[in-house]
């Protein structure tokens, strides 16, 4: 008897799931403007459709969520001002190239006119040729690899042309870090690098850093690698300690970084730690004692404690809406939406134009305009899509980022 009931329950669940999936199917194919990944703002009538994808699930979800939240907020703010209206559709790609192409398909079916492209690098490299084929304008907030904007990333030639970045490219972060170490010998002079040799982003930064460190005459005393599956970092931290390094460069994401700090704490090893934008998020790791991250330096173009009005307002609104301090990804995303809006207004783009026409106008705007945002003043773009702005370092003090005077 019991089994019979179970069967019925399962059958009901199945039917429900199928009905839901069919409903979703119908919604997607009819190209309705229903908010699939979460549309923001009360776009009335004709609105320009902004697409985008990023990891909302999986290990890199914090980035995708931050980008999605900030983009939603920016769209709401711009829509509230009146003028050109926008509609946002942000899809999940789980930091996976295959799913990013699926997400791109969903967005194209939806009728995306301009795009925030993707949040992370590998998915961006997968969808970049599709943006080029369909001639849709993309401005990625945070996909930083060279493959995101260059068809031939090895020679940095053949840019896609309609893809632009708000963040620095990976190599530029490595280069900027090495330059920063040279100009700030007080941080430490014996440098040790721990990086993830299974990760695109981490190795990209590492390579350029080593080249520039050699050029700058820095003393790199050693390096250690780890993999995505590594959970115990005592070997790497031990190697750093044994090498006598007083500055450890961590071109890695924040999750392994938190484990490194825990391992270093248990060994009583206290060098200067220096991370790049992937370290952003260290303060939001669940179950991690943020005291261990005190004094960690990050090279990031955004610090939430900056005192200019724009940052203050952004941080305040973001906190009120989502209950957490925005990270650099959120700031990049916020800037991306505002930069798009600025270009749209300047070029006189309207919602009834085709994506291809909009793309031409946007490209000519982006290569000529100068943009003031959260992540930099007088930000400009080259024709290949690379951004030009001043990098700045922040240090973690009392659980928050504090800007470091250059």
């Amino acid at each position: 008897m019991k089994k019979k009931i179970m069967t019925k329950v399962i059958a009901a669940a199945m039917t429900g799931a199928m009905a839901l999936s069919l409903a979703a199917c119908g919604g997607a194919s009819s190209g309705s403007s229903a908010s699939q990944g979460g549309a923001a703002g009360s776009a009335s009538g004709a609105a320009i459709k902004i697409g985008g994808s990023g990891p909302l699930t999986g290990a890199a979800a914090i980035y995708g969520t931050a980008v999605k939240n900030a983009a939603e907020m920016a769209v709401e703010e711009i829509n509230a001002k009146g003028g050109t209206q926008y509609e946002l559709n942000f899809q999940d790609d789980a930091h996976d190239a295959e799913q990013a192409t699926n997400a791109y398909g969903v967005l194209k079916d939806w009728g995306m006119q301009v795009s925030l492209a993707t949040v992370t690098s590998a998915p961006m490299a997968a969808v970049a040729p599709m943006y080029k084929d369909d001639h849709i304008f993309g401005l990625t907030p945070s996909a930083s690899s060279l493959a995101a904007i260059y068809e031939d990333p090895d020679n940095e030639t053949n840019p896609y042309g309609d893809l632009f970045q708000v963040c620095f490219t990976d190599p530029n972060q490595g280069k900027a870090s090495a330059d920063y170490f040279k100009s700030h010998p007080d941080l430490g002079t014996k440098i040790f690098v721990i990086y993830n040799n299974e990760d695109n982003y981490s190795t990209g930064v590492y390579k350029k850093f080593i080249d520039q460190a050699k050029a700058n005459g820095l003393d790199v005393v050693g390096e250690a690698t780890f993999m995505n599956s590594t959970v115990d970092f005592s070997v790497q931290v031990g190697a750093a300690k044994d090498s006598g390094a007083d500055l450890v460069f961590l071109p890695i994401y924040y999750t392994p970084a938190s484990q490194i700090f825990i391992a270093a704490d248990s060994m009583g090893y206290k060098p200067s730690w220096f991370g790049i934008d992937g370290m952003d998020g260290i303060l939001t790791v669940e179950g991690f004692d943020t005291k261990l991250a005190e004094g960690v330096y990050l090279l990031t173009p955004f610090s939430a404690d900056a005192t200019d009005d724009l940052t203050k307002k952004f941080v305040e609104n973001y906190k009120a809406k989502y209950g957490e301090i925005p990270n650099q990804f959120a700031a990049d995303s916020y800037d991306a939406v505002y930069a798009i809006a600025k270009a749209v207004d300047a070029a006189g783009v309207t919602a009834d134009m085709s994506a291809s026409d909009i793309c031409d106008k946007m490209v000519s705007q982006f290569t000529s305009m100068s943009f003031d945002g959260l992540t930099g003043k007088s930000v400009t773009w080259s024709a290949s899509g690379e951004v030009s702005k001043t990098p700045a370092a922040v240090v973690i003090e009392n659980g928050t980022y504090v800007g470091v005077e250059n």
Partner: protein
Amino acid sequence: MNNKRSQIVSFSIIIILYAVLEILLKTGNLSSLFSSLLIPVCCYMAAAIGLNLNVGISGELNLGQAGFMSIGAFTGICVSGMLSGVISNGVIRLVTAMIVGMILAGVFGILIGIPTLKLSGDYLAIVTLAFGEIIKSLVTNLYLGMDSRGLHFSFVQNKVSLEPGGKMLLNGAMGATGTERIASFTAGVILVLICLAFVYNLMDSGSGRAIMAARDNRIAASSIGIDVTRTKMLAFVVSAGMAGAAGALYGLSFSTLEPRKFDFNLSIMILVYVVLGGLGNMTGTLIATMLLVTLPQMLRGLSDFRMLIYAIVLIAMMLITNNEKVKIFIEKMRLRRKEKGAGNGEN
């Protein structure tokens, strides 16, 4: 007889679906989402058919199918990249890449099979599990570049320095970037059809019966003169080769491919397609693969709940396909149809 009918069913499913989708695609009526799913689904199908041969027909658990796909994918990308200056025809390059990927994956299959398939028990599962991880680590540390002077190779540390205009075919953790996308849906369908035809013919052949006999009772099989290791090796190597070809097609359908894509999770996903489709049941494998690959994309409308619903569907499928009552019901239907058929025959 029954076997023949299921063969016709699976071939017709693929061919009819291909015809419908191809017409939709050519007339521009297929949504972009579906067009983006076509090639990956074909790749997973081919890999799953191969795995079903190994797990379902030969009865050896393989937890490293993604590893073989990885070998095929990166070999295929390299072959295609190397030939790009020589052969301009994308189809010839694609076929060459898939064949080379298949052969190399098969060779690795032989290497793994030699020590493990001689043993009885679950050793193949353990070894293939490790193999998948080893391949991922290996590819992560491989650097292969090509310029006008030829090929340059380095391991662990990237010491490849290319002349201007050179191209990195494999770039360590970044995998392959800037791959020319020469894979096509038609090639995928042809691959699936070839795999199906091969497996069905193998099942009907003497070697296939030997494989099944060795699965059902190793001792009895060897007592009648079947070389158990050899038959199991045949199934395993064919399975690996299919994964290799599928991987090559997969790799050449994206402009970028990271080694981390072919991780343990992917191996398990392919195994899930096989198990939910039914061990030894190729039609079931095809349908399960189609459903389970497209389902998460179809559920995008549910945003935050989609992975939850997907998990529920997985559990539900598992319970229902294994439910005794459902099985009895299907068996009854089958019997009834048979009786009817027999009755008609007499009249």
